[in-house]
Structures are given as structure tokens and as C-alpha cells.
């Protein structure tokens, strides 16, 4: 028993979340990122409804689920559960950051093509919020000591289809962009919730920490 306690005390400084000596750590910024993710989910729900109506049927039909043909360049949010579980924090955050970087570029392209001023306003507002999420993720990564992925020069993703790309296929791409964005936000909420629980120490651990000081 004493040996166990000694082992815990030995490893205590290695747990970042338990070293709470004034620095709040990444916990609050993770919480904020999580909150922002949930807010964006809500915001996107409204925006996607408007935009898909703007594209017309069948894109605005709730059960429309076309094959993912021309949207191969979009970062895919769906992932095998086991693979997702096996991701470490750094990789998880990196994937989030990269995905939103790409999605933000595509979304800006979408905004440029929108014909109505109201839709352009909504898209611009969402882009600003998404930019905020990207910054928030970068903040969490910095707090956890993870470097930001550097984009390769000249590989800036664009949403400019080729001349042979028919408008129907482009609408399909728009549909998939919004769908992937929705899935990514859902996945990010899971990611940050998991990260939040992992980083924030349970109450028992804090008690142990305090007792250790007294001891």
C-alpha cells in the first residue's frame, strides 16, 4: 500500500493537469473550444438548411444521400471507431486543425459563388466563426505543446472545379462540403469532450494531490 502511494506521488509531477499552481492549464481553452464547436453545429444547421434550399431538390431533401463522387478532396470526417480511439491527443488535434483549414477554404469559395446577398452574409459570418474555431484549436495545441501543421506552399486547397465539372456535380460538391462540415463538427465535439475529460483531473486526484502536499 505504501509502495502504491509512493508510486503515485512519484508520478504526480508528470501529470500536467494536477500541477495546478496558478496556471489554469489548457482546460478552459478546451472547454471554450468545445463550446464553440457546439455553437457552430447549431449555426451550421440553420445555414445548411438555407443553402440546400438554394440549391434545390434533391439536395434539400432530408434522405438524399448521394455517392461521394467529386468531393474526394474534402477531408473525410468519418473514421473507424477503433482508429478514432487509438488516436493520441496530438494527432487528434492535428486532424481537426487540418480538416477545418481545408473546409474553411472551400467554404470561402462557396461564399464567392453565392448569388444572394443574404446568403453571402450568412456564409461570411459562419466563415468568421469557423476561423475562430481554428484559432481556438491552435490555442489548445499550443497549450499542449503540439506544433501547428505547416501547409505546403502552393497546395492551398481551392474550390474551383475544372471546366468539365458540370454544375450538377458542383452542387453535389457543395452538398458534401456542408455534410462533411457537419460531421466534422460532431466529431470535434466528441474529440474535445474526450480531451476535456482527460485533461481535467477527477476530484479524487485533486484530493490526493492536496493530501500529498500535507503528507
Amino acid at each position, binding site marked *: 500500500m505504501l509502495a502504491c502511494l509512493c508510486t503515485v506521488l512519484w508520478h504526480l509531477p508528470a501529470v500536467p493537469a494536477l500541477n495546478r499552481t496558478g496556471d489554469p492549464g489548457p482546460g478552459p481553452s478546451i472547454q471554450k473550444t468545445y463550446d464553440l464547436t457546439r455553437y457552430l453545429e447549431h449555426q451550421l444547421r440553420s445555414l445548411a438548411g438555407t443553402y440546400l434550399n*438554394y*440549391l*434545390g*431538390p*434533391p*439536395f434539400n*431533401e432530408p434522405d438524399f444521400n*448521394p*455517392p461521394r463522387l467529386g468531393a474526394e478532396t474534402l477531408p473525410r470526417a468519418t473514421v473507424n471507431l477503433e482508429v478514432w480511439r487509438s488516436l493520441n491527443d496530438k494527432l487528434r488535434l492535428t486532424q481537426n486543425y487540418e480538416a477545418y483549414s481545408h473546409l474553411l477554404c472551400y467554404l470561402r469559395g462557396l461564399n464567392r*459563388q453565392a*448569388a*444572394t446577398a443574404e446568403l453571402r452574409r450568412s456564409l461570411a459570418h459562419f466563415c468568421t466563426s469557423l476561423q475562430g474555431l481554428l484559432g481556438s484549436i491552435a490555442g489548445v495545441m499550443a497549450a499542449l505543446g503540439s506544433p501547428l501543421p505547416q501547409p505546403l506552399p502552393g497546395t492551398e486547397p481551392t474550390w474551383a472545379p475544372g471546366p468539365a465539372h*458540370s*454544375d*450538377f456535380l458542383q*452542387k*453535389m460538391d457543395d452538398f458534401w462540403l456542408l455534410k462533411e462540415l457537419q460531421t466534422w463538427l460532431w466529431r470535434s465535439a466528441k474529440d474535445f469532450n474526450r480531451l476535456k475529460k482527460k485533461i481535467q483531473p477527477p476530484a479524487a486526484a485533486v484530493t490526493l494531490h492536496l493530501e500529498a502536499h500535507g503528507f
Partner: protein
Amino acid sequence: MAVFANFQTTFFLALLFLRISQSEVLSEHLPLTPESLKISINSARQYLHVQWTVRNLLYHQELKMVFQIQISRFNSSNIIWVGNYSTTVKQNQVLHWSWESELPLECATHFLRIRSMVDDASFPKSTIWSNWSSWEKVDVQDSLGQDTLFVFPNDKLVEEGSNVTICYISRNNQNNISCLLEDEQINGEQLDPHVFAFNLNNVPFIRETGTNFYCQRNKTVKGIVLFVSKVLEEPKDFSCETQDFKTLNCTWDPGRNTDLRKHASQRYTLFEFYSGEKKLCKHKNWCNWQITQDSQETYNFTLIAENDLRKRSVSILFNLTQRVRPMTPFSVSFETVSATNAMMTWKVHSIGNYSSLLCNVELYGEGRMIQQHNVSVKVNGEFLLSELEPNTKYTAQVRCAYDKHIWKWSEWISQSFITLEAAPSVALDVWRNVKSKPGSQNVILFWKPLSKFHANGKILFYNVVVENLDQPSRLEHYTIPAPANGTELSLDQSSYEIRITANNSVGSSPASVIVISGNSTEEVEEEKIKGTEDGFPVSWKPHSGDVLGYVVEWYDCPQDQLCDFQWENVGPGNTSIVISSDAFRPGVRYNFRIYRISTKRIAYLLEKKTGYSKELVPSTKPQVVMNNLTPHSFTLSWENYPTESQPGFIQGYHVYLKSKARQCHPGFEKANLPEITDDPLCCKYKIDNPEQKRFIVENLQPESFYEVQVTPYTSAGEGPGEAFMKVTTPGEESHKLIRILLPMIFCILVIMIACYMKSQWVKEKCYPDIPDPYKSSILSLIKSKENPHLTIMNVNDCIPDAIEVINKPEGTKIQFLGTGKSVTELEFTKPAYLYLLPTEKNSSSPSPCICFENFTYNQAASDAESCGHVLEPPFVPPSQLGLVTSSESLLKTLEKSYMNSLEEIPAEETNLNYVSQLASPMSGDKDSLPTNPQVPVHCSEYKMQMAVPPCLTASPLSEKSSLSSVTLLDQDEHFH
């Protein structure tokens, strides 16, 4: 000459030969069949494009030719279209021709061939068709890719209302393909085992992102977007104008927007005919055109609107000087603003060295236009606005136009200003209310605030100057700050002249004069008037004397005399006025006083009027009192009924009488009220005099039952009354009997009062106190006679055996107040006897005591059993009793229990047994029984009686708990 003629003939022959031989060459040796056919398709516009050449044309030869073209679909024998194309052909020229296909060209293989014919007048013999070229095939299906389902045409642009054919190619034999236009499934026509076509007629515009057509098979979705554009409209309201002769600004209404997300092609071009210049406009509804310096005066503009599908144009021709709209003036300001004038200045943008503008100035006050002026201006404009009202806010605005030809005015520019104040222009409307007191008079002055129009500024205060007319040298000044609308003055009985002025920052208004005469005690009769919906028509008799005018005064809310005192001035020629006010309410009595104003400005009361704007039914019930009841009549009176405070003039009363008689009494009539039934009969008597508040109901039957009610009524109807009063007339005998009985009762009462007053005397006479034998006067007489044989009876002569103490607990539950324990187990089954005198066994000496039982005080001895709730002393076990009885705590406990028991005993059960007591044995030792009295000397004395509850008198006296009723009292409570 002949040589020349021969030469000429030879030349013509040669030429003719050459011409003939050439025709033969064309017809015989040059077939002119189209060659080198190349076919291509334009998918976006669904054009089939073909190019070819015609060989065998001579150098510099130019011929008119007709080409016949045949187009087949799916196979060469299925010819779907034949047409001719005429053109002029040169040597080695590549000819082009296009054909628009309704069916998307990707959905079918097309074949094309051409043949030609010379259609030139120079070669009439050549008008025969050449041979057909070989069939040229165009098929793009091989280049579509590996997919199994395709839909065409891609992103086709059509106008609203067009007909469109859409097709799909399926490389799979499965036929479970469904196609939808937006969200509606449509059926197609099978053209080929793999090709279906859908004809859409009159396609509508749905949205800017196009109309979606898609086909799906299992999870495969393929579709196209059909861009349906609105039809481009001709621009409307096209016009051009200049503000500065430098730039022409042309505007128009473009109509519907035909742009789509992928086809934003709607554009406008401005073309000027005289200069030949053209400008592509950046905006869809306006365009600027720079005026050149060569002073072109006339312009002919053509506005061309076009998109990918259509082109429209509209033209205007105008002279530049007739299209001038100056810029909005600026720097509007007001200088030297006075109470009635203001100088307005402004500036305009110059439009040329010798040009001037016509400016339009408008002045607004209180939302409406007051003045309008035209001013000619070059650069700086100014105008004097006059006839203004003091202290008033005005708004002035100005606009300008080109004075040579007013095409359009510039925009307005406006500015506000306020004129300065001036002295109030009119006198105040003043009235007074005089209340005379003995030796003085209280004058309340009222005035109506000046209207904004007359105040000419903000009224700061009111000046009141009071001059005693009897002593002209005395003037009193009062300053009343605004916004007061009255003041109160206490004056003596002299006559006074009061002058009131309103003052603003500039000056005073003319004075209003009122004269108060010292003796104004006129009394006039009040007259009733009837109000109407328009108000109260008040009229009075004209006065023949000196009349300056009349004043009618009233209160808007008569219940509160300080509320809204109102008056109205009437000219001397008028003797009537309709007083109307929004404050008038139905059911409220309004009093009007009409005054005559003499030329000396003294007011004399002429008439008084009172009335209701609308009378209501009475609101209060009369309190009816009945008296003078006899077998045949009784009197009803309601003297206190307030007729003046009713919501209408009380016109009288109705007396209702219900009886079991079959006919109404004389003077009564049958009441026809819906709520009153005929059984019993209800009759009504009508009293017309509102001041008659007493009524005698007569002709009644003795010993009969009547019901009676009194209700007031006004012109609006009958008011409420108290509930019917029930009356039973007495019999005639009982009436007489009452006359006898009443005096008798009175006499008895007098006697009883007299007896009460003389009670002491009665007591002495009827039941005197028991005399004390020792103090008897007889005793002194006996002693004086010194008769030794005569003595007073000795106490030894009366020996009581015992005193029976009645004890009847009968198992009553008794509570220990201190402990709360039940003491039902404390039963006293045998009667207790208190032996006051020693028995023979215990007595050592004869008892010296004598006792008299005073039955006068033994009031409740026989009611002892009525004390059901007997409180016993707390039960104390014998073992503890010894400890308690020796201490004072026991006494206190017992005393407390006793007091509590008193509280618990009901009032009717707290009867007391007054037991006569002999004091001597117990007075000194309260803890011991008087078993052995030692001092018998005092026993012959009477003791005061002691009040003991009957319950306690029944306390058991045993040897252990030998606490008699006497022991419950402290020694101090014994009264000697």
C-alpha cells in the same frame, strides 16, 4: 475601217466561244461535290458544326451555290432533317454551317451529308445537284468515360418558356432508372435501347442556381442543371441629365434581372449616334457619359441591353440645355433673425459662367407651408422671410433649377430657426370667485393661460396690481410665477380694481381689469335646466343697463369645488350660450351662474341654473321609518332622504303597498311591475312632491298583514327602494289593552327605581343585622338594675356534637395540575366528620366554645354535588408526604392547585359555601388540628366569613392528610 470591223467581229466570236467553252467545262468537267467534311459538336449550345470545301473552282472564280444538307440520327437511313444553305463560294474556301439539335447530341449518333448546286445566273445550265458527299458520322459516346449512366445536356441555358429535351444514356441493361425534374418524377420516350428522352415544355424560372434534373438507379445519381433565364426586358424610363455640363448621368429601369449563378451575362452598353462613341456600363441601371469640350448640344443615345440569349435597345434624342438638373444647394443659414423677420442665405454650385439658377424657397410652420418664393441666384442666394410670428419655430427649404429650361428641380435642403420673443399680444382672460366674510372678502382670481400664438414667448410670471377704489392712493403689487393660473387675495369690504398682466422676457401683455365691489350679496332663484348631448343651453334675460358683457361660470366637477373652475365670456348682445365640456358626466349636477359685467367692470349675479347633462335614476334608497301604527293606519317617513345629491332631479316617490285585499286602497293604483305578482295585490301611490317625505297609509284592516316600500323617481326612472317593510296592524282590543298596561308598567318601574334608591332604608326596615347581645342596650339596662340573677346565656349551655362535612366526590376524575396525573384512585367513600369538640375519650376539659351557624351565608350547601370538576390536592404518596408537609413547598403547591382549580371550574359551578368559623383554635397553629384548645376565652367572638370553594369544603380530612379548608389559606388571609 473594215479591218477594224473584222477585228471586232472576230473578238466577239472569240469571247463567245470562250464563254461557251467555260460553261461546258463547269457542267461537264467540274462536279463541285462538297468535300473534306468535318463535323464537330458544341455541347453547351447543342450545335452540330460542319465544315467543307468545294474543289474544282477556277481561280478567282466566285459562284453562288446552294448546298443541300441531310442529317440522320442513330443510322444514316433515319433522316431527321433536310435543308438548304445558299452562299457564295470562292476557290479553296472552307464553308461552315451549324445546326442546333433539339435532342442533346451526346445521346445519339448523327450522320450528315451534303450535295451542292450552282445557283448562279451566269451559268444557267449548271443548275443540277451534284452527287451526295459520303455520310459523315459524329458520335461522342465513346469519349464519355466508363460510367454507366449519363444525363444530357449539361448546364444548358434557355429562356423562360422554352421547350427543352433532356436525355439519358444507360450503358446497363437495367431499366430501373427513375428521373425527376426537381422533386417530380417524369416519364420519357425511349429512343434507343439505351437512350431515353424527356421533352420539357414551357420551362419556368425557379431559382438562380438552375433547375435540377436527375436520374437515379440504385445509389447512382446523375443529373444536370438546366439554367432557365428570365426573358430580358427592354430598359424603361431611360433618360440622361447633367448637373454641371461636364457629365451626363443616364439612368433607366432594367426590369427583371436575368442573371443566373453561372450565367451572369446581362449587360448594358451606351451608344451615342453623333459622336459614334460607345461605352460599356458598369451598372445595370445607370451610366455616366463624359461631355466633351466641343460643346455638343444635341445627343442621340441608344441603350443596348443584352445577355447570352437576347438583345434589346432603346434610344433618346435631347438637347443638353434641356436636361439640366442642378446640384442641391448648400450652406443654408439664417442671419439677423428677429421676432418677425429672418434673412435666409444659401449657396449653389455654379453651372457656367453666364448661367443662373431659379431657386424655390418654402417656409413651413407647424407642419404646413406658410410662404413660397422664387429667387434667381448665380452663386449666393438670400431671401428675407418676413411676417413671422414671434417665438415660433420655422423650417425653410430651398431647391434650384436651371432658369433657361426647368427640367428638374434639385433636391431640397432645409434648415430650421426660431424667431425671437415679443411681448404678449392680448390681455388675459380673467375671472374671479368672491367669498364674502364678515368684514372681509376672499377673492380668488383665475386666468386662462395665453395661447402660444398670443404669448409670443415663454410666460415667466403674472403681475397682479390691486387698487383700493375707496382709497385710490393705495396700490398693492403681487407677482405670481408661471405656470400658475390663479391666485387668492384677502381684501376688506372696500371696492377694488384688480389689473392682471402676463409677462415674458420681453414685456407685459395688456392688463385685464376686474372690479370687486364690497357688497355683492345678491341672491337669485335657481332655475333648473336640462342638458343635451351638445351641452347645456344656458340663456338669461337681457339686461337693459350698462353691460360690457356676460360671464357664465361653472365647475367641471362639482363635487370638488377646487377642481376646474370654468367660465365663458359672452358679448353684450348675446343672452344665451351652449356650455359644452368633455368633463360633463351623466348623473352629475352642474350649477351655472350668469353674471353681468357692467361698464365699470363690476360683476353682478343675474341668474343661477342647475341641471344634469343626462339624468339618471336615483342611486340611494330612502330610509323609511314606520310609526303611529294603529289598527287602521300607520305613518311612513323618510325625512333624511337627500334629494339634492341624487343623479337626477327627484320628481317624487312611489309608495307600494302589498296586501291580501282584492282592491287597492283609495288613492292607490295597481302596480304594473314585472317583478311583482298579483298575489298578494300590490298597489302604488304616487307622490309628486319631492319634498313630501311623509305618508300616512290609511284605511287598513285591523290584524292584517301588509308590506310596504317607498322608491324615489326622476325623469330617468324609478330608483331603488329598501326591501318591503312588513307590517301587521294590531287588533282594536289589544290596542285598548296597551293603553292600560303601559301606565301600569310605568308605575311599577317608578316604584322599583325608588326602592333601589332607598335600598339601605329598606334593608334596615325589612331585614336588619343580627344584633350583638354584648352590645345590646338591654344589657346595660339590666346591669344598671344590678340584678344578679339575670345573665346572658353561657356558652356552655350549647354543646354541638359534631359538624357534618358533606363530601361527595363520586369518583370524579381529578387532575394533578402540577404533575398531570389522574387521581381517580383517590376515593373518599365514607363521609368525613370533623369533630370540632373533643370526644369524651380525648377531652380533658369541657369545651369552652359556642358556635352559631349562620345559614344566611350557607348559600350553596345543597349544591355541593354540582361541582362535578372537583380539584383535589395533589396526590402525594405517604412516604413523600412526610417530606413535603413539613415544608412550605407543600403549601405553595396546594395553593397553586387551588388557584388553578378555580380557573378550571366553570362559572356556574363556582358556588361558594360560606362556612361560619370559630377562629380561636386555628388562628395560631395552622399545621395542627384543634384537638386541644387551650384558650377558650376568645371563642365567644363572631368571625368574619371566609370564602371557600364548595369543592374544597368537601375535602377529606383524614389523619394523614389532615389539611382542612382552613389550612389552605395563609395566615394573612384570616380576617379578624
